[in-house]
Structure formats: C-alpha cells, structure tokens
C-alpha cells in the first residue's frame, strides 16, 4: 500500500497564515501577528522535513510520488487536476524553500519590527510561500504556472511594500511587467504542449516526449518549446535581456530581497528548466541558447557588480550572475549541478542579504558602502557570518560555494554539451565575483568608519548597534549551512561520493548517459578545480590590494578607464536603452493611436452614437403608447394574427 504523505499540508499551511493575517491582522496585536506569521510557515517547514524522512524510505517504484486530489479543469480531452508531484528535485526545492523561508521569516520579526503594515508584510510573505510551494509541487505545468504568476504577484506586492515611496511602487510595476514578458513565452510554450501532447501533466507529458528522438537534425518543436520556456525562465530568473527588474527590486525590504530575489523565486526559472530537462535534453540547440545566455549573464552582471556602491545593488548583480551560473549548468545538461548550486546559493546569498540587512539595520538604513567601513568591531556577529558567506560565494574551499561552482565549471568544460569557452568565461566570472565580494567585504567592515560626515551615528560609534538575537540566529544557522552545505556534493576527485548528484539522478536519468562525462577528461578535473580556486584567490588578492593597502588606487583606475568605468557604473545604460527602445514608443503609441484614435475616436463614438440613435428611435416609438388600453390590445391582436398567418403559411407549405 502507498503511504499517504499529506503533501497538501505543505502549501496550505502558509496560505492559512496569509489568510488569517491578511483578513484579521489589522486588529491583531503585534505579538499575535508575529505568532501567526511564523507558526504556519514553521509547521509547513517541519512537515516538509517529515515528508522528506518518509520520502527517503519510499520504495523507488513509487517515486515520483504523485497524488491527484480533485479535477480542476476539464475541457474536452484536456484535463488538469489539483495534484502534487514529489520527486527528488521538488523534494530538494521544498526543503530549501521552506527552511530558508522559515529562517527569513524569523529574521523579519526583528527587521520589520518597527515598520508600518507589519501584518501586511507577513501576510504577503506567507502568500509568497504558498505560491512558491505550489510552483514547486504542482504536478502539471498549469499548476506550476499558477504558482509562477503567484510568486510574481507577491513579489510585486512586497517590492512595492513601501508603496508610499514612488520608487518602490514603480520598481514593483517594473518587476511585474518585465517578468510578464517572459511569462508570455512560457504561456505559448504551454499552448504548444497542449496542442501537441494534449496534456500538461508531468506524469503523462514526459513519457510522451521521451519517446521522441533528439532533434539533432536542426531545430523542431521541442526546440521551440524549449526556447519559449527559456524566455519565461529568463524573465523570472532575471537573465539577459530581462534582468533589469532585479536591481530595482532591491527597493523592497531586505528580507524580501533575501527570500524572493535571492533564495527562492528567482531560482524558479532554473527549477523550471531542470524540471523540463526531458524537453531540453532533446533540443540541443535550445540548450546551447540556455548555456550562452547563462554565461553571458554571469559575466555581464559580474562586471556591473564591480562598480556598484550600494551594498544591496552589489548583491543583486551578484545574484544575477550566480543565476547565470545555474543556467550555464542547465545549458550543459548538468542539471543536478545547477540545482546543487541553487541550493548552496540559497544558503549563502540569503545569508549575504540578511547580513547586509543587518548592516543596514545597524546603520539606520544606510546602504551606501562609501559611508561604511570599520564595522567589524561594532557588529561582530554580522561580520563573521558575512565572512562565511563571502568566502562561500567566492568559491574558496571548503565553503559551500566552491563545490557547486566547481561542479558547474567542470561540467561546462567536460560535458559533451559544454566547451572550454564556457569554462573560461565561468572562471573569469568567478574571479570577478570574488573580487567584488571581497571589495564589499573590505569596504564594509575594514578601515575606519566613514559615515560620520554623512550624519550617521553622531554620537560616535556608540550609536551603531548590533542587531537583536532574533535576527542573528538565522544568520548563524545560514552561516553554518554555507560552510558545510556543500559537503553533500563532495566531488569524487577528492574521494567524495557525489551524494547529491546521485540523489537527484533518477529525475535526470532520462539523459544521464548524455550528461555523462567522457572518461578521458577525468584526469583534468583537479587541474580545473585548482585554476578556479586560483581565480578566486586572485580576486581576493586584488580586492585586498585595492581596498586595503592602496586605497587611492581605485579612483585612479576609474579615472584612467574613464568612459568604460562610467559605463560599467551606470550599468551599460541598459535601462536607458530600454526606455528609449520600448517604453517611450509604447507610451507615445498608446497615447496617440490607442487612446485618442481608437478608444475616443472609434469605440466611445460608436457607443455614444448608438445611444443617441436609440434615443431618437424610442422617441419616435413612444407615440405608440397612447394610454388607450384597447389600442394596446389591438397591437397584441395584430401580432397574434401575424403569428397565426405564419403558422398557416407553414401548414399550407
């Protein structure tokens, strides 16, 4: 018999929390809101772990564990159901989402304590959890799409959380619209799937697809679907060319940035690509596109990250580039590596954001690194946790980042879909990454405090305060995770058994052989790993040089580079370009053609004209109403006569 895992509890619990807080929270006391906001997420997290325990003990013929609760839509042959789908992939995602989510919830208790709309915040956050879990657990693309849109919605709500700030509101709108462009592609992909396979159900779709051959002989249907899916993923996961919303999304509260725009939502695209591995593995050209986009994004965002001065912006761009890594992994069919990096990234990037949040919190909302410095002594907890995260992202062994990043780089080089170019770009990106991360590290925590003249902490350092425990505990936990989190993927070359990859292998078994690394290259693995570590250390050294020993150099270099530097600092003017290219024409066009022309000219005019016409006609007809009953009777009788005449006509005919 099959054990009943009661998966539905996992998504439903946060929804309940959201409902309670959202509907009644206004009347609740601060304490109650906190309780409701966290208990449900905590419960869902606990249940997720319990499910994990049961899941490990499931006989593998029952994996994936699918459970249909009810029929949702039935239209002709097409049917979608309320169903949940649990396999290794979604298991990992669920664990990451619930655990990191829960930690960030706890963190927010402290961080948001003094903000208005406290209950609103938690209600939104729980809502996000619900949708994210729906996205991850749904047993068909439609459910996934619902979750997809739902997280978009809650991200919109949370980015615009301080909706009184104009920038926040517009940032929210920007995020919503830009991701929507990607969703468009996603939708079309779904339509294609329905049209050709008649179902969106993973259980029915993937076998059907895996019967098709690999489209080596030029692009075909699967390629199209793959590319469209990729568009959606690029929108959600902030890849080129749709990444522009993520930096602006930093307008939201820091926990939001940590949870949604670093740990979970933005990785939905990666999850989706990995989930669709069956499709991609049969569309090499689509995979190539994925890989190229991934690695371009990684490099591109990293370069921008170097010149940012806003601490959160730096982290945002680094998020983009790390996502680029993940796509690169997927692009070279190393899905498990991508997911692995997704997990570790969730740990250390979440940690980074939270720590940055703690820094900002300690400085009363100051985000500019040029006004920081020397905080090491004042906020030691934050400092140490941040250090762990920085080393992790920089990819210095034995921190978590190293293993996943090394995994990706190795696959990028060795996989039969990969090539040495991907690898080279990856390594370069790794160098840049470690450089700007350590730059941030040095600027923030070392040297002397530069915030006085900016009016922060007039009473000297005494004013700069460490964050409360409730914020530090999650930091500590995540720090531990970002140290040891990578060890479950300990590579073979140093006597590891890549447990993680093996755990995920059933999901990607469909093409395990394709991803299989050509044995001959194995000898190269230690060498490549060494090179990437070297790159990371180089980055560290450069940062040390520029921001510790020779503090004057950066400005000189910037001056020397001149235009190039400003270009980088101003993010290559991409936003301005988009404005000129799309936004302006759109506004103009809709103003002059759609509004003045079509709406006012055609539609409204039609309505008004017809209204007047009706008025005239009825004004004429109204004289039939003589008030004389017998005239009415006459009309009725005439009508009856006509009807009867028609009947006669029928009878005769």
């Amino acid at each position, binding site marked *: 018999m099959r054990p009943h895992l009661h998966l539905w509890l996992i998504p439903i619990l946060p929804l309940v929390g959201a409902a309670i807080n959202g509907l009644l929270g206004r009347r609740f006391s601060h304490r109650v809101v906190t309780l409701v906001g966290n208990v449900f997420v905590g419960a869902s997290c606990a249940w997720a772990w319990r499910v994990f325990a049961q899941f490990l003990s499931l006989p593998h013929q029952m994996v994936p564990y699918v459970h249909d609760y009810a029929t949702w839509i039935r239209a002709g042959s097409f049917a979608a159901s309320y169903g949940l789908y649990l396999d290794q992939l979604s298991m990992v995602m669920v664990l990451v989402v619930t655990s990191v989510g829960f930690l960030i919830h706890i963190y927010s208790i402290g961080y948001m304590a003094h903000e208005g709309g406290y209950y609103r915040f938690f209600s939104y956050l729980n809502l996000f959890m619900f949708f994210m879990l729906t996205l991850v657990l749904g047993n068909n693309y439609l459910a996934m799409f619902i979750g997809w849109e739902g997280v978009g919605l809650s991200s919109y709500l949370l980015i615009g959380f301080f909706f009184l700030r104009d920038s926040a509101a517009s940032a929210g709108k920007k995020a919503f619209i830009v991701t929507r462009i990607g969703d468009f592609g996603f939708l079309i992909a779904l339509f294609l799937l329905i049209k050709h396979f008649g179902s969106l159900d993973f259980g029915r779709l993937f076998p059907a697809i895996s019967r098709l051959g690999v489209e080596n002989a030029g692009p075909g249907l699967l390629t199209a679907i793959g590319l469209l899916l990729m568009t959606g993923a690029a929108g959600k996961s902030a890849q080129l060319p749709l990444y522009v919303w993520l930096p602006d999304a930093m307008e939201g509260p820091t926990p939001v940035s940590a949870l949604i725009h670093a740990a979970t939502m933005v990785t939905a695209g990666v999850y989706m690509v990995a989930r669709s591995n069956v499709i991609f593995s049969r569309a090499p050209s689509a995979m190539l596109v994925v890989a190229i986009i991934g690695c371009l994004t990684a490099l591109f965002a990293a370069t921008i990250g170097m010149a940012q001065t806003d601490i959160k912006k730096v982290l945002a761009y680094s998020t983009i580039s790390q996502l680029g890594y993940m796509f690169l992994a997927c692009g070279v069919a190393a899905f498990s590596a991508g997911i692995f990096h997704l997990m570790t990234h969730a740990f250390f990037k979440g940690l980074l954001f939270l720590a940055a949040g703690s820094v900002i919190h300690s400085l009363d909302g100051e985000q500019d690194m040029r006004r920081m410095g020397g905080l090491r002594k004042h906020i030691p907890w934050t400092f140490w946790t941040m250090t762990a995260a920085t080393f992790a992202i920089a990819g210095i062994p034995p921190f978590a980042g190293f293993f996943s990043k090394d995994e990706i780089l190795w696959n990028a080089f060795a996989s039969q879909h990969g090539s040495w170019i991907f690898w080279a770009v990856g390594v370069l990106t790794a160098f840049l990454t470690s450089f700007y991360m350590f730059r941030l590290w040095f600027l923030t925590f070392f040297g002397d405090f530069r915030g006085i003249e900016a009016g922060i902490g007039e009473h000297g350092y005494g004013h700069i305060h460490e964050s409360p425990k409730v914020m530090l505990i999650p930091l500590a936990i995540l720090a531990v995770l970002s140290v040891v989190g990578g060890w479950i993927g300990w590579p073979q070359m140093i006597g590891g058994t890549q447990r993680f990859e093996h755990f995920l292998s059933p999901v990607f078994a469909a093409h395990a052989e394709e991803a299989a690394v050509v044995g001959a290259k194995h000898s190269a693995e230690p060498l490549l790993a060494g090179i990437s570590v070297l790159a990371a250390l180089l980055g560290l050294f450069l940062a040390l040089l520029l921001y510790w020993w020779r503090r004057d150099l950066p400005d000189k270099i910037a001056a020397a580079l001149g235009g190039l530097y400003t270009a980088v600092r101003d993010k290559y003017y991409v936003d301005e370009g988009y404005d000129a290219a799309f936004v302006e024409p759109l506004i103009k066009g809709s103003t002059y053609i759609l509004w003045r022309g079509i709406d006012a000219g055609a539609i409204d005019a039609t309505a008004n004209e017809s209204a007047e016409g009706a008025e005239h006609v009825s004004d004429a007809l*109204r*004289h039939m*109403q*003589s*008030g*004389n*009953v*017998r005239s009415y*009777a*006459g009309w009725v*009788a005439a009508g*009856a006569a006509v009807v009867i005449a028609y009947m006669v006509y029928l009878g005769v005919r």
Partner: protein
Amino acid sequence: MVPISYYLVLSAILFALGVVGFLIKRNLITLFMSIELMLNAVNLAFVAFAWQWKSLNGQVFVFFVMVVAAAEAAVGLAIIIAVFRTRETLNIDRVNLLKL
C-alpha cells in the same frame, strides 16, 4: 360522429369573438368578460385535443386554466374596484393616464 376540427373551429370563433370584444367594448368589466371568453375558448380546444389523443393531460391543463382564471378574476376585479374608487368611472377610454 363529430369531427374534432368542428370543435376547434368553434373554439376559434369563440376566441376571435373574445378578441373583438376586448377591442370594441369600453366597460372594464366587460373587457374582463371577453378575456374569460377567450380562456373558455382555449379550454374547449384543450378538451378537444385531449379527446382526440385520448389523453387526460389536456383536461388537467383546463383545470389549471380555471384556477388561474379564478385568481385573475379575483385580482382583476379588485383592481377594477380600486380604479373605480379613484377614477369614478369604468370606461376604459377614460382610464388613459398612463402615457407620455
């Protein structure tokens, strides 16, 4: 041996008379009577059909028609009384305020 169409024609004639009565009479009460006449004509047709098809449903319908006629008469005559109270007349041509 009476052909059914005779009954139908009879009911048609009665119905038409009811219609013309409604058209030419001026007394509210008489108008109501004309309506009753039409209803009766319809009843006759119903019974005739019931008879032709040897099925009782038609007669049951006549029963219902009678019920409705009774209700309608009660309410209608009450309305007539009310009208008479206010307008002091039963002439339909004088009860013609409902117009533009």
